[in-house]
């Protein structure tokens, strides 16, 4: 669900770690534990790999020691802000066959875009690129659902302007829910950029609020861990 998924969808990241969305249930964690053993992955920081923490929305971090991937960070999450539970994410997944022996499953593009709406600077240009890549690849052959996705998530003023021209009825419908759309063709591009930035700021604020209690819990776990070591 991280940098590798972004590359496959058309954005470009150089990522030295690997992020996985996983199903948090005991049987799956046992299977996962075996895979992590093969990678000689050691847990780092808190919390520990436990269904309880994963279901709350924590990320669990590992660093691999096995030959060929020594130093590689693996981050696991089972719940992401604003996204459905794992069974639904899995049902909506995108599968890429990259060679005869390599098949990769990733979050669907709408789920990945949703997951990228974080408090981090680096995620926002990525969202823009992900939607741009999808738009330029599929415009002219897109169905209602995909057009709806662009109207909801596009962050490029030029694309928003074209969407209004190409799909006026759908655009008007979506504009009831998205302020920046109401400004298209009425305000200059700079004004659209400002409204897009406002959307971003709102999501960043929500993301910080979402993580606040989780961070408090992590702090507590960290202090307990340090205390038990001493």
């Amino acid at each position, binding site marked *: 669900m*991280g*940098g*590798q998924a972004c*590359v*496959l*969808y*058309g*954005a*470009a*990241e*150089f*990522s*030295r*770690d690997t992020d996985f969305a996983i199903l948090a249930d005991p049987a799956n964690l046992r299977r996962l534990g075996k895979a992590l053993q093969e990678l000689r992955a050691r847990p*780092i*920081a*808190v919390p520990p790999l436990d269904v309880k923490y994963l279901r709350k929305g*924590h*990320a669990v*971090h590992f*660093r691999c020691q096995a030959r060929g*991937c*020594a*130093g*590689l*960070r693996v981050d696991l999450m089972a719940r992401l802000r604003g996204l459905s539970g794992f069974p639904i994410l899995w049902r909506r997944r995108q599968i*890429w*066959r*990259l*060679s005869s022996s390599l098949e990769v499953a990733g979050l669907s593009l709408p789920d990945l875009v949703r997951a990228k709406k*974080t*408090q*981090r*600077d*680096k995620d926002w*240009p*990525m969202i823009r*690129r992900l939607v*741009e*890549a999808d738009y*330029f*690849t599929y*415009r002219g052959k897109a169905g209602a659902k995909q057009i709806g996705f662009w109207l909801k998530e596009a962050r*490029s003023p*030029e*694309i928003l*302007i*074209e969407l209004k021209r190409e799909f006026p009825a759908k655009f008007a419908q979506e504009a009831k829910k998205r302020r920046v759309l109401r400004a298209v063709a009425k305000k200059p591009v700079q004004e659209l950029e400002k409204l897009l930035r406002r959307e971003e700021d709102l999501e960043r604020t929500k*993301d*910080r609020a979402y*993580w606040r209690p*989780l*961070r408090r819990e*992590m702090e507590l776990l*960290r202090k307990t861990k340090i205390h038990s070591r001493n």
Partner: protein
Amino acid sequence: MLDAEVAVGGEWAEWYRLTPTQRWSESRKLWQQYLAMGGKLDPEPDTQSPFYFPEASGTVPADGRTSVRSIRRR
């Protein structure tokens, strides 16, 4: 119709035109080059990450660069 080359620039438009398999392959080449140049897998701390804690991070690379970054910009 909006010209992708004009809207996002030639380099990005070219990247978007690649298939996922081609992008994966290009990304692998970049990886191989990075490792051949002595690049490390251990990421630098992502201080904006909500689950960032210093002890979760390895040593900061000598180049001081971040672990994940956009490699193409507008």
